[in-house]
């Protein structure tokens, strides 16, 4: 048994905690923007029409008292579009079935899709596909945001392709249509397996009365072109006719109940223990200055069941902690950076550990706090590139599900080796203390300065030290801003910025969601035993 012995000193971590709480307050303020939708005026107008806001629809859809993980709530942060990207996505439990829910927020510019809406929606559909989660669309959207159509129109076609591919893959898709779903949007119900439309609210047509008049001269109205009753009785596009929004959600729940959904993976162990240490102490572990290392075992002790962590190769490659644990009853292998830098030994250890996890089909959790692979003549000569490549190879071709949490630094190829976004972890979440970039802002500015100075010298010109200082300050500020979690989350490079105290709950929910897809199959090609490198 490997119960982690915490050496955390609450007095020494008070400052860390203060800094983290300040960042969490900022996070809450950004989330509040997403919750505000289109603002009080539009929310009120929406309610006056007898309609429910998107999150109230979601809350009614999911089982009472069940957890709901909202995904990408900061999408479009730092862009011209409102935080949240006018859509709510997440994983919730409907009639005991974990589902991906996508709900347009019609209070934000009529629920129109902008480039970030599209990105966020695609991400949610990827999650549905990878984890085989039924998809429930709560539809009410005015279509594409026309000024940005060039960024939506061509890539956006994937939406309809993916809906039917989900269906073809045996993943049910359900659309509850609460309002407008016209033009291209009409293909969302059109491509869904089950369609519910709300009486006198749903409006699903390719062209509305003005367009029809222009195209053919025909006089028509909304109801005859795309009303719920017409689709339920005449066109057959609607499978279920709902009296009102509540009724639509009731019908949606009853559809899910009859999907006969079964989770193929092993059930989580029963009777597991909660961590021995208080999750609240997770606030004090990460120092505000990421140059100060911290022991990831303190995090692991507050995240895994019973704080029980069996470390693998504890004496070798000690900058990377590897070991086995269970989390909400799900077995998991953990790779966590201990002192930031990855050396050859750490890389080899990681590659071996990832192979072992693949041998037993155990999902992997990457806890990132890395400044990257070691540089310098000694390390290059010892083959750091070979060994880094070895680790990236193992991560890239690993078949078990991966989860990544960026706790602190995520720089350079360390981001790749530790299963950054490009390596398709099933889920990736960020703590407010994290930073991700090709390298640290000061280092990046310093490199630019050295390169510029060398170029000036080569041209025989004098180097403008004043301009260099200004350039360095500007670059440092820009890189700093662009490596911060809100910015990266705004670009949908993660699945959300989370409160460190929620880490166990978020990961438990994700591991359970992963269990909706069968465990990875054995490789088709030549297989070898696990290499000890």
């Amino acid at each position, binding site marked *: 048994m490997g119960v982690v012995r915490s050496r955390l000193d609450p007095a020494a971590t008070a400052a860390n905690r203060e800094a983290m709480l300040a960042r969490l307050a900022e996070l809450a303020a950004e989330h509040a923007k*997403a919750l505000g939708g289109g603002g009080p005026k539009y929310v009120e107008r929406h309610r006056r029409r007898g309609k429910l806001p998107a999150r109230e629809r979601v*809350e009614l859809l999911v*089982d009472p008292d069940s957890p709901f993980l*909202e995904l990408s709530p900061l999408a479009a942060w730092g862009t011209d579009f409102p935080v949240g990207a006018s859509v709510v996505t997440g994983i919730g439990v409907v009639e005991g079935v974990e589902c991906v829910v996508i709900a347009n927020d019609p209070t934000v510019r009529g629920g129109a899709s902008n480039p970030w809406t599209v990105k966020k929606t695609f991400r949610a559909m990827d999650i549905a596909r990878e984890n085989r989660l039924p998809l429930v669309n709560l539809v009410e959207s005015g279509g594409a945001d026309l000024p940005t159509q060039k960024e939506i129109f061509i890539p956006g076609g994937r939406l309809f392709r993916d809906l039917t591919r989900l269906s073809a893959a045996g993943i049910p898709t359900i659309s509850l249509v609460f309002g407008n779903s016209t033009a291209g949007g009409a293909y969302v119900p059109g491509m869904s397996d089950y369609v519910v439309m709300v009486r006198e609210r749903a409006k699903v047509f390719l062209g509305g009365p003005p367009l029809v008049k222009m195209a053919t001269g025909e006089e028509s109205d909304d109801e005859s072109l795309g009303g719920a009753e017409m689709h339920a009785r005449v066109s057959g596009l609607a499978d279920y006719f709902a009296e009102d929004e509540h009724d639509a959600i009731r019908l949606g729940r009853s559809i899910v109940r009859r999907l006969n959904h079964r989770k193929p993976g092993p059930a989580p162990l029963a009777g597991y223990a909660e961590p021995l240490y208080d999750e609240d102490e997770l606030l004090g572990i990460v120092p505000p200055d990421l140059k100060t290392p911290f022991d990831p075992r303190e995090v692991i002790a507050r995240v895994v069941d019973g704080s029980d962590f069996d470390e693998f190769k504890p004496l070798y490659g000690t900058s990377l902690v590897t070991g086995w644990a269970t989390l909400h009853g799900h077995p998991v292998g953990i790779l966590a950076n201990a002192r930031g830098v990855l050396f050859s030994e750490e890389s080899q250890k990681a590659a071996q550990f990832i192979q072992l996890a693949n041998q037993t089909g155990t999902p992997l959790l990457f806890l990132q706090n890395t400044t990257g692979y070691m540089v310098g003549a000694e390390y290059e000569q010892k083959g750091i590139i070979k060994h880094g490549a070895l680790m990236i190879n193992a991560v890239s071709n690993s078949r078990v599900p991966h989860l990544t949490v960026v706790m602190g630094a995520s720089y350079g190829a360390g981001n790749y080796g530790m299963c950054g976004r490009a390596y398709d972890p099933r889920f990736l979440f960020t703590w407010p203390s994290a930073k991700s970039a090709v390298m640290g802002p000061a280092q990046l500015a310093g490199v630019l300065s050295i390169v510029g100075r060398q170029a000036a010298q080569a041209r025989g010109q004098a180097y403008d030290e004043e301009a260099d200082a200004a350039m360095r300050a500007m670059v440092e500020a820009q890189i700093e801003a662009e490596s911060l979690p809100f910015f990266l989350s705004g670009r949908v490079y993660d699945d*959300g910025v989370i409160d460190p105290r929620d880490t166990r*709950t978020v990961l438990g929910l994700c591991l359970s969601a992963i269990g909706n897809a069968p465990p990875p199959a054995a490789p088709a090609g030549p297989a070898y035993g696990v290499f000890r490198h």
Partner: protein
Amino acid sequence: MIRKLLVANRGEIARRVFRTCRDLGIGTVAVCSDPDAAAPHAVEADESVRLAGAAPAETYLRADALIEAARATGADAVHPGYGFLSENADFARAVIAAGLTWVGPPPEAIAAMGSKVGAKKLMAAAGVPVLPELDPAAVDAFPVLVKASAGGGGRGMRVVRSAGELVPALESARREASSAFGDATVFCEPLLERARHVEVQLLADAHGTVWALGERECSVQRRHQKIVEETPSPAVSPGLRAALCEAAVAAARAIGYVGAGTVEFLLGPDGGFHFLEVNTRLQVEHPVTECVYGLDLVAAQIAIAEGARLDPAPPEPRGHAIEVRLYAEDPAEDWRPRSGVLHTFDVPGVDARFAVPPAYGLRLDSGVESGTEVGVHYDPMLAKLVAWAPTREAAARRLAAALRGARIHGVVTCRDLLARVLAEPSFLAGDTDTAYLSRVPGLTAPLADEAGVRLSALAAALALAAANRAAAPVLGRLPSGWRNVPSQPQRTAFAEGEVAYRLTRDGLRAEGFEDVSLVSADPGRVVLAASGVRRAFDVARSGDRVWVDSVLGPVALRLLPRFADPAATLAAGSLLSPMPGTVVRVEAVPGDQVTAGQPLVVLEAMKMEHVVRAPRDGLLERLHAAPGDRLDAGALLAVVTPREDEPAGPA
């Protein structure tokens, strides 16, 4: 010696007699009507005989069927309990004629006391004080009471306060007496205002020994029926007790009484007492006497029926006992009887069932258990609860606490009122009379006040949340209602009000509750701390009904569905068009009485005729179809309401 005894009764008294039989080694035979087939008394007897039917006249009042049941099971004795045929001299004679032992007084004694007019004459002759019988034609002093000679249970009884009311009161009393008892004889007595009901328990053997086992005070009554009884009476001095007992013994001797019986008196505010009647049977309230005298009156009845002799003197009384009768009646709705499934019936702290507790304590005589269905056919008394303690105050306190702590789910009872009575100052002062319940205000208010109901609803919502988590097939151990981006509370709607709550890292956040924190929540129990005071709430649920029990008082809630099914919200009995079509014919008109299956409307669709038929017997209330009408599928065609239920049979 009696070997096997049939109890010609049901409910708690049958179970009580069976308990003594088991103690004595006597076999037990129950009889049960159809609705009582699964009743506790029928299930726990060694043998039970079904009496086909439900109404008492078809079942527990059928002397021939009862005697046949005894013959079929080989029972050699019959105990009549109380009510039903217990004071029917013909039944007693029939039992004896069948060669069975009758556990009760001689039929002649029953017959002699069956007529109130005759009984009064006999008693007056024996020197027992009686109220003068007034000639209805010559009444000149008011108020007076008109009573049916064959009466009981308050039927045929009228209070007359002025000469003008007399003749109508006589007429209506005669009509009621005639229909209830088959005997229209009525008589008049002076009405004693603020009188108490006091009665003496007698036990007489066949060898001339008569015990008077003190008095019982039974003044707390509703509709002339007792709900609280105790012994000794707070209004009876030792001297008065001696006089009452002497009068009762004289009454017993006057009619050659044998067995257990009760002589009832009215005790005036002046201390004067007057004979009311003799009950020639075991009384409902006999357990208080058993507790205080340390006796088993049923065992004594059986021993006397077997010819045993009583000791020369009765045992000495010890302590004070109070009994309450728990009725399935709603005092706030004029004591209307209630029925339904009694989901839970649990009285914590009971020391003995159907028997005297080994030491001062709590006794329960219950005709029901958790799960019993309380019907409409019989007396709605569910159980009797008795506290026996050294003093009256101690007994009242113990009994009130037991009532407050009882868990009674599914059927409205008078429990809250009983608990209020036992803590009410004038009751505690012994200041009760037969008008007590109508005189003291506020007794029908529920124990739980508005704040108690709100907290109970919150506790219920949190218990349901815990149940939801426990039953969740996935993610059951994640924090309840967890959100990474919280936008709104969880909502649980009860008919009594909505509860909105969130369970956060920092504890409970409940809308409208300022200083309430959650200590623990399980599906069956929630502990809340409100303004620093910690209380446990026990929560039970069946379907949409939720019951919360706590020190704040019992609360029953009705859970509203999250989603209303539009199909279910249509008026019951609505008929919808099965498909789009045209009405060809209409076969009935609104106002018709229709029978199930009768054609109402004929539709034509796709060249086929479709007949829409009445779904049940009833009144065709509405019809939305006329020949030639085009109808959509699902359009409302007609509404058929069921006939009013037949009035319930006599109880």
